[in-house]
């Protein structure tokens, strides 16, 4: 290839860099490096004049490599790549040295910081020599979408997509739609009927011709990549043997929901032993049946509601399940209106009343004389049978935080607000669709703040409580957001694939298949006939696991090649 012409630009970032790092010194050191034809330092490289400087040099000095020593590439790599593009240079012929976040901002010793900045810049210059122009690829986008889970989130996402006229496959494990919402009587804080919400959704679903609802069905395998997945669905329709169906889909919405915490795991609540200790879902059943009563059929005089069962407790789940507080208040209200002479004790850790109308709901609940009792994290109450002389069935012993007293709460009926936990099959689902789950089993979003519905696998989106505990409005919002993201992609028609991915040199690959199992995105396929492995660019996320592992050096990690990294090592140590 023609001779290298490298331009190096050292940013002062106002004084952010220059007050510690001697930018001029770094510039001069860089200028002295081989192949560097121009080195400049400037106040703000990311500013328009700064970028224009690069564009101008590319065009006038014919630079074919550009290095900017400035902030973190996570901050401005894209900015400068675009500048290169504008200058007519392939954006991948650019490299950044991070002399702000990892230099001027973390070191006080000016000399040492400057030396380090020089080294990092040297590394970048060395590296950029080996950069190659890369082009992004494009692939077709299949307009149909697979939605996993027929709960409120799944149904909403499916409707949103279908209403835009795109085919949707709604896969539900159970024999009916509705998920956990179908087990609920009414919703907090406005006490609307959950049934109404569901019937509205379900009727629309059934009416819509673009939606094929697959009940008693599960995803068995998912291959391919964004825009070009092929999903195998197994339907287990009662007597007749399970049938498998392979459907082509462009995107997948995972809305598999949650499972409630198993209250019997907390032995001192006596759930399963004391007949009148029930879970929130069992109470919902009572409400749906329309009668609040103890096992002996009597209406309870004292009702106690215990919050955070399995949540916010190091022994079980550290996180907050987010919906229990308002649900508990809902119960307090329902009980008071059904049994005005009853006494409701609400035993909580903290009252989480965020969200519309919830603080008011909390106030309202105290106005109806609900007795709020606070217990401490990790010292949860103990429930025992009451004595013959007590006017109640059970006694709950607990350290009450607001009074500092150790108290006994009378109760005839105890409702345990069981928290949410990841479904036992969450790990399996994550494996099937190639997304990751955190330590609690919740699926991980691509960015917790900026990209809460996408995952690190293109074309796979998450919605509802499979990502984290959520209330209905949030689940619905996330479902619609996921649908929106997919619609945008479908509208675009084609998908663009970043030029950075791994590629296998077939002349070097010996078909040892060491790499096949390593890819988290099953992007490596094996051609049995040729005895060669091959990377599907669109499916590859460029992590480089296979590149490092290929024993015969046949896999090349584009933009992170061995040569580039060796050169950088040499540079930073020079």
């Amino acid at each position: 290839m023609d001779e290298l012409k490298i331009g190096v630009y050292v940013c002062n970032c106002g004084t952010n860099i220059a007050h510690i790092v001697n930018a001029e010194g770094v510039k001069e050191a860089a200028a002295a490096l081989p192949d560097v034809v121009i080195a400049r330092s400037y106040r703000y490289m990311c500013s328009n004049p700064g970028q224009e400087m690069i564009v101008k040099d590319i065009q006038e000095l014919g630079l074919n490599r550009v290095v900017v020593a400035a902030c973190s590439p996570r901050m401005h790599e894209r900015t400068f790549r675009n500048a290169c593009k504008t200058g007519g240079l392939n954006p991948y012929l650019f490299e950044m040295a991070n002399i702000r976040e990892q230099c001027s901002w973390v070191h006080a010793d000016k000399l040492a910081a400057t030396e380090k900045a020089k080294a990092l810049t040297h590394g970048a210059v060395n590296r950029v020599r080996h950069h190659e122009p890369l082009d992004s690829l494009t692939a077709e986008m299949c307009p149909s979408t697979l939605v996993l889970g027929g709960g409120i989130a799944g149904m909403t996402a499916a409707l949103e997509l279908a209403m835009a006229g795109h085919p949707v496959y709604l896969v539900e494990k159970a024999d009916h739609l509705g998920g956990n919402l179908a087990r609920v009587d009414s919703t907090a804080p406005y006490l609307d009927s959950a049934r109404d919400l569901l019937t509205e959704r379900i009727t629309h679903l059934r009416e819509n011709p673009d939606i094929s609802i697959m009940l008693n069905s599960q995803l068995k395998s998912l291959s391919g990549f964004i825009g070009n997945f092929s999903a195998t669905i197994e339907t287990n329709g009662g007597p007749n043997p399970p049938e498998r169906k392979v459907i082509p889909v462009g995107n997948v919405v995972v809305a598999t929901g949650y499972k409630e915490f198993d209250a019997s795991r907390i032995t001192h609540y006596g759930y399963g032993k004391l007949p009148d200790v029930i879970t929130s879902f069992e109470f919902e059943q009572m409400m749906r049946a329309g009668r609040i009563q103890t096992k002996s059929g009597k209406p309870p005089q004292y009702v106690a509601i215990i919050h955070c069962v399995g949540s916010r407790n190091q022994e079980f789940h550290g996180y907050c399940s987010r919906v229990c507080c308002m649900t508990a208040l809902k119960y307090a209200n329902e009980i008071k209106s059904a049994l005005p002479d009853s006494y409701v004790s609400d035993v909580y850790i903290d009252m989480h009343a965020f969200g519309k109308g919830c603080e008011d709901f909390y106030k309202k609940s105290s106005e109806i004389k609900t007795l709020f009792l606070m217990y401490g994290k990790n010292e949860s109450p103990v429930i025992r049978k009451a004595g013959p002389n007590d006017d109640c069935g059970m006694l709950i012993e607990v350290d009450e935080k607001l009074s500092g007293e150790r108290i006994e709460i009378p109760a005839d009926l105890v409702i345990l607000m069981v928290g949410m936990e990841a479904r036992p099959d969450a790990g399996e689902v994550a494996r099937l669709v190639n997304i990751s789950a955190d330590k609690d089993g919740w699926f991980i979003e691509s960015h917790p703040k900026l990209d809460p519905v996408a995952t690190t696998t293109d074309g796979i989106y998450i919605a509802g409580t499979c990502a984290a505990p959520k209330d209905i409005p949030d689940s619905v919002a996330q479902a619609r957001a996921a649908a929106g993201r997919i619609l945008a992609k479908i509208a675009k028609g084609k998908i663009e694939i970043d030029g950075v991915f791994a590629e296998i040199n077939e002349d070097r690959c010996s078909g040892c298949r060491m790499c096949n199992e390593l890819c988290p995105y099953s992007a490596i396929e094996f051609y049995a006939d040729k005895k060669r492995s091959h990377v599907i660019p669109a499916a590859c996320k460029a992590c480089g696991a296979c590149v490092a592992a290929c024993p015969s050096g046949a896999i090349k990690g584009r933009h992170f090649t061995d040569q580039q990294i060796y050169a950088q090592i040499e540079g930073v140590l020079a």
Partner: protein
Amino acid sequence: MAIRINPKLVTAIAKYGAEDVQKCYHCGNCSAVCLHADETFNFPRKPMRLLQMGLEKRIEASLDPWLCYYCGQCSTQCPRGAEPGETMMSLRRWLTARYDFTGISRLFYQSWKAELAAILIMAVLTAAGFLLYGFSYGDLRVYDGPGAFLPSSAVHIFDWAMAIVLVLLLGSNAARMWWLTTGSNKKIKFDFWLYVKKLYTLPLHFFTQKRYADCESRQPWKLHLWLMLSYVTMLVLIMFFLEPMQAGPDIRWSVHALGYAAALGLLVTVVYAIHGRVKKSEVHMKHSHESDWIFLFMLVLVTVSGVLQHVLHRAGTDMAANIAYVVHLALVVPMLTLEVPFSKWSHLAYRPLAMYLAEIHRVALPQPKALTEPAELMKMAS
């Protein structure tokens, strides 16, 4: 050892006035704004909590409600409208009922009809008694001197008899108060000299109510003080100078001047109070329990009838004066016998006593340390 809570108490206390207790979510603003609350006597928040949880024994043992003069700051500041001030008031009523071993007090607070009935009966009995006495020993047309219908000497003896009964009743209740709050408290060992040393606080708070003066607005304190002093003045005149008071018809300024001042004080302050409660013009007047109304109206009637019999006597219309006098006695006797030991008026004894005992608690009880340093708070939290 865990103590059993009683969710029912909150409902029960409503009869004593507090209806919003359960709205409190313990932000602590009330205790923060209260100038009298401190680490030892942390009210209104703490008593409110005890009340919410129905820990009656704890409340019985607490002096907190009596240390509050109900300036109403807490209620104004409360973000939840839980009316801490009124709750303190209600707790005072509840405690009064608790201290009273006869149970009459509980009856009165829970049913104003009962209270009213008791007053009527008492009035009738008194009237009957004095009329019988008058007609058998004197002449309705004579007000004072020989043959007087109700000779002051006789009334004087009656007054003293009644006073002794009242003091005994109130005294025994006060004693119960001491026992519940202090005597029975294992942590406070009896220290005679301490009681002697702190004794001065009793009259101090009784006559000055200086703590009331510390409250945010001083106006209520002035009125309350005026009312109280007028009342006491009148009491002293009646108990010690009844003869000179009744002698006439010419006015003896040496005693009457004071009498008029006291009567005026009583009238003005009570009328002001009634007006305030009707208009709900101030925080501490927003909520009025039936017992408050009965108390005020009795006081008004007593004062007016008293003034009336005096004026009629000076005017020389002795017969009218005598009738007015009987009416006056028929009002004042039930008021004193029922209100002082069993109702609102008892606080004239309980409050100063509470202040006195509080002083003893401060010395005798281990003082909780004030948590002001954030660092310490953090330590507590972790």
